[in-house]
């Protein structure tokens, strides 16, 4: 199968609405490698679907340039705007968008009927059958979409994208409408398929688990900007700001924000809910950075569980969730707010304290950006 790289230069997209100007994408610069499984991750409304539509050619950027390999496919300033079909992209939609009045076979053949010159009927049928075989839906070819289950429809949608032999796959939250177990199975299948075919894939999702498991690289978007670009391990271990830190990882990272000070001769961070005693390494980093307002982020699984009084944060247990090999503890802070701890060993008693492991803590300055 063919493949190509994608470059987005200074992409901006905005609209004029009745309520004034709305800017969905503010300044996006991205380069996606050939054959890469690239994930656009972000909460609803962050602009990721808009970005996908721009790559597909369903929408025109307000300014900027989109280049596939050596070909400029969109550039308002140069008056270039190629239609989706001319860009050689195929798209899988969240709602699958199968043609309800056609059989599955006709659904798969439809993209081929638009090729110029139009291939022979037998050729088109063969391509459709090959794609169906790859996705194990051969037995469904003469049915209509309404007779299929969600998972089957999704595979037909993927088949319709494959049959075109495009240079780029675009997927807009294709697994969102499936139940949890099916989602897990399809995730693995999708990853395997993409590796086998080697086609550049841009995948949009709001599910950080999907992003982490599927992506070669992830671009975390929020508010029209790329917040961070990196491998799954990059964004998990070294989030560049508080937003990315809280978005990646489940349960969410615990955040303590406040001013540094001294209490009982020991450096602390005075957050509204709790006074956090700072390990020396962390307080040193804060002093080096300068300023007084900082944020500490600790993942639920990165606390030390210590007896009462010996740690940096005093807590009291509220609810415990047992999820197989691990336990999720929802604990109260002194002022009544809650944080989450993940551990494999249950602590004794209801009240204990948490120790912050300096290497595992994430430190952010007053603007929310990563320190050091």
């Amino acid at each position, binding site marked *: 199968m063919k493949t190509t790289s994608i470059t987005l230069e200074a992409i901006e997209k905005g609209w004029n609405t009745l309520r004034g100007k709305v800017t969905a994408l503010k300044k996006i610069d991205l380069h996606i490698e050939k054959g890469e499984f690239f994930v656009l991750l972000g909460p609803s409304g962050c602009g990721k679907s808009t970005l996908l539509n721009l790559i597909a050619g369903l929408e025109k950027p307000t300014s900027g340039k989109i280049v596939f390999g050596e070909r400029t496919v969109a550039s308002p300033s140069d008056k270039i705007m190629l239609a989706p079909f001319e860009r050689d992209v195929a798209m899988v939609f969240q709602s699958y968008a199968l043609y*309800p009045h056609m059989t599955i076979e006709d659904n798969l053949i439809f*993209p081929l009927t638009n090729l110029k010159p139009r291939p022979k009927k037998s050729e088109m049928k063969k391509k459709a059958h090959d794609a169906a075989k790859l996705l194990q839906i051969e037995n469904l070819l003469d049915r209509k979409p309404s007779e299929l289950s969600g998972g089957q429809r999704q595979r037909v949608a993927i088949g319709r994208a494959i049959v075109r032999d495009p240079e780029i796959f675009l997927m807009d939250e294709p697994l969102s409408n499936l139940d949890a177990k099916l989602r897990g199975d399809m995730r693995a299948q999708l990853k395997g398929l993409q590796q086998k075919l080697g086609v550049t894939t841009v995948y949009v999702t709001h599910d950080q688990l999907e992003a982490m498991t599927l992506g070669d690289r992830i671009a975390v978007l929020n508010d029209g900007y790329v917040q961070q670009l990196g491998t799954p391990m990059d964004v998990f271990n070294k989030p560049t700001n508080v937003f990315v830190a809280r978005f990646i990882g489940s349960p969410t990272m615990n955040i303590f924000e406040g001013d540094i000070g001294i209490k009982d001769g020991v450096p602390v961070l005075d957050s509204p809910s709790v006074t956090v005693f700072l390990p020396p390494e962390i307080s040193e980093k804060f002093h080096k950075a300068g300023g007084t307002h900082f944020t500490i982020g600790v993942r639920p699984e990165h606390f030390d569980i210590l007896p009462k009084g010996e740690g940096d944060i005093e807590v009291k247990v509220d609810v415990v969730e047992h999820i197989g090999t691990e336990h999720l503890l929802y604990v109260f802070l002194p002022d009544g707010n809650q944080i989450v701890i993940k551990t494999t060993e249950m602590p004794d008693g209801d009240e204990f304290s948490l120790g912050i492991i300096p290497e595992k803590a994430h430190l952010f300055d007053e603007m929310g950006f990563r320190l050091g």
Partner: protein
Amino acid sequence: MREKNIKSILIFAGVLFLLAFALSPFIWMMIISLSDRPDFLGNAEVDYIFTLKNYVEILTSRRLHFMDYFKNSLFISIIVSVAVSVIASFAGYAVSRLRFPGRIAVPLFVLAMSMFPQISIVGYLYTIFADLGLLNTYIALILPYIAWTVPIALWINMSYFAQIPVDLDKAALVDGASRTKTLFKVILPIALPGIFSSFLLVFIACFNEFLFAMMLTTDHIAQTIPVGIALFRGTHGEIPWGNMMAASAIASVPLVILTLIFQKYIVQGLSAGSVKG
């Protein structure tokens, strides 16, 4: 248990009553049409002789022009239905999928226009067509009928097209279909039930329309069935109830058949868009 039975009986009785109420004019019409000495307001049992002569007469008598009226009604209704279906389906597609100024204003305006009672404009229509020398022609009815039925057809089509997911258009576009091909190969086949519903409603409305037909046509060249039947004259100037009832019976056959076969679409058309999904 007893309560349930009584309730069923009452409901059954109520339905029977409503049926009788709705069907009795029709049944009376059939009785009169098959009577040798039809007296619309008299006692049908008195000297009732069963005969088919009324039917024979209207089908064969040139003087009564029944077949002319039938032909006119059919022709006009079909032309109008086809024209309105084309106009309304394209409009439905445009309003649900394209961004253009007036997208909301135009349908609302059309709706507002449709609220003018026919009687308030029929005088002006008469003057216009008289000045154009077009009275008593097919055009004199086709044009006003199109204007009169487009609002309802437009709204049925708009709400039906709005229910077709826009993702389908996008998918077709990415699959390489031009806008025209998307419209004809993807969207229209899916919208067919909605278009068909509006076609039927328009056809029925035109077939039954009386006021415009009455005012804008004068004789069998362009008159439609409702007017034609109403103006039937007997050989001695009397009102030929038998013939009128026979003609009404025959005229209602196409409508009854259409409605019975396609009642699903008619109901669908009337309730399209009322509930989501």
